[in-house]
């Protein structure tokens, strides 16, 4: 089955929650909605589920207009950020409940519940009540209930936020595996770029109620259409530096100069914003023409296997992503190297002009 959103607007109390959203989701696809809190992810999912009606626009499932059809008749399922289960029913009955409502035979219910519970590894808790379980097990129960009924559209609204990161890693992996064999459309909302990348599939970027970009996750990551897209799809956020281009030189924030090299030759003189990914800035030069800058360390955030270094000088703040564990005292002074060949270039309106992987032909 396919799902198409046709020019959707959602206005609540005079506030635009969604503006002219057009989206087309293919059968069997895994779609990530990436955006900050309040970007409209939840609003959009609620429309897809049929919990809300759009102010204008149409929702088309399998070619049929379902805009006004109630949620009970849509064959969708949804998993929320909070652990939502029926606390008065056992885990078994929780999972069985959508099947019972669909008047499935008892034998079939038993079989499907066992299969799904097995898949999500909660078989041993079937006779318990949800509130007696740990957070991870509760969320597995909610997922099992969503997966058991063969819905044609499955919505996940930041389902892993409230879990430990190791559990998150495991569940994310399982989820991707679970969907390999399905023909349902999965929609997964998240605020975390890494989650979007790890889940693969396609990513749709939402910003202030509008779709700013949509496509295969890795492609969207590498070719952001504008500053917002680049910023959204980068954790830690992409570094943005204002700069001026003259005939033969680039000046960063009136303080750092470097010659206009081959990749940037086609830029017309004027003001630009330059973007550089945190992972591309290094502690050792990667190229002869790397920009060397002396910076002060603000904080070294260490995530077990990598280090996020927040550094600054009198002109700008940068974040670097280093692999491995590097401890620095705050206020230490270090030299960093910025590869000028890996710059993203945006015009002053924020539109991307070129990326390191796609140079504009001069």
């Amino acid at each position, binding site marked *: 089955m396919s799902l198409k959103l046709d020019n959707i607007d959602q206005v609540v109390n005079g506030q635009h929650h969604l503006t002219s959203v057009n989206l087309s989701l293919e059968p069997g696809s895994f779609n990530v909605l990436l955006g900050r809190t309040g970007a409209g992810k939840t609003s959009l999912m609620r429309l897809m*589920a049929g*919990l809300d009606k759009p102010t204008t626009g149409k929702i088309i499932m399998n070619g049929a207009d379902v805009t006004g059809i*109630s*949620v*009970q008749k849509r064959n*969708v*399922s*949804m998993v*929320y950020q*909070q652990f*939502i289960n*029926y*606390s*008065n*029913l056992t885990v078994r009955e929780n999972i069985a*409940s*959508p099947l019972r*409502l*669909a008047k499935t035979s008892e034998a079939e219910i038993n079989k499907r519940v066992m299969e799904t519970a097995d898949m999500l590894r909660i078989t041993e808790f079937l006779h318990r009540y949800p509130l007696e379980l740990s957070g991870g097990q509760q969320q597995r129960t*909610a997922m099992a*209930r969503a997966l058991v*009924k063969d819905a044609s559209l499955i919505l996940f609204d930041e389902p892993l936020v409230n879990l430990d990161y190791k559990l998150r890693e495991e569940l994310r992996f399982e989820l991707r595996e679970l969907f390999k064999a399905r023909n349902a459309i999965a929609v997964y909302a998240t605020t975390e770029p890494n989650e979007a990348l790890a889940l693969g599939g396609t990513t749709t970027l939402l910003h202030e109620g509008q779709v700013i970009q949509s496509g295969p996750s890795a492609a969207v990551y590498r070719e952001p259409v504008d500053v917002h897209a680049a910023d959204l799809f980068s954790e830690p956020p992409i570094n943005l530096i204002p700069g001026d281009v003259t005939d033969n030189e680039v000046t960063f924030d009136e303080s750092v100069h470097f010659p206009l090299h081959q990749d940037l030759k086609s830029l017309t003189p004027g003001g630009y914003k330059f973007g550089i990914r945190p992972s591309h800035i290094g502690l050792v030069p990667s190229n002869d023409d790397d920009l060397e800058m002396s910076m002060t360390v603000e904080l070294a955030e260490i995530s077990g296997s990598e280090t996020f270094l927040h550094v600054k000088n009198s002109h700008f703040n940068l974040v670097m992503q280093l692999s491995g564990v590097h401890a620095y005292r705050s206020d230490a002074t270090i030299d960093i190297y910025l590869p000028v060949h890996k710059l993203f270039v945006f015009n002053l309106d924020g539109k991307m002009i070129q990326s390191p992987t796609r140079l504009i032909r001069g």
Partner: protein
Amino acid sequence: MMNYSKRKVAGLSLYVMFLLVPIYWLLNMSFKHKEEVLSGLTLWPSNFTFDNYITIFTDPSWYMGYVNSLIYVALNMAITLTVALPAAYAFSRYKFVGDKHLFFWLLTNRMAPPAVFLLPFFQLYSSVGLFDTHLAVALSHCLFSVPLAVWILEGFMSGVPREIDETAFIDGYSFQRFFIRIFLPMIRSGIGVTAFFSFLFSWVELLLARTLTATEAKPIGAVMTRTISAEGIDWGLLAAAGVLTIIPGILVIWLVRNHVAKGFALGRV
């Protein structure tokens, strides 16, 4: 000096004695013969008797008083919960025209002294032919129990995330089925406490109950005045009648005991 927790136990024991000694005295009195009551003060019945209770249980004009009271209290609880549950759901889940005003107006009714409604109720129920029926008393008590019930239930329902409702609809539950099978069990503490309060205010109220009834639905409170006669008051009989009014209350507390601690916070702490 006693330590802190011993002082607590001592204090609580004193208070419990203050609560129970008068009740004990009533119980004591109810097992005494008329003669023993009048012959002077005794700490326990020297001549233990069930006569007073037997009188009550064998005389329909006595025991029907209990039956009548229980009927209108039960009716009141049923009506209160039936109308208050959907209303509280609406207040906890939706915004609608006039919602805040309506909610506030409901609560102001709880503030009305029953005495104010005495005469108009009497006329109203007489004119619709409900005078001296259980329904009249139950309905009149609803004026006080419904606002409180809506308010208490709204607090509990707001504590249940709206996502539960949505998940149920997504799973295919109809509204009615969801409400009865999923939602009500989730707020059972709230329902227990609401029932408790409805019982409480209806069971203890006498002014309206007495005014709106004559013979058919006469409450036990009104029947009890029969113990006062020309020869004075039959203390033993009065005490036995009193003891019997305490029993339904104890049963109700027993039923809701597990919800009291959580429920009395009224979903608002």
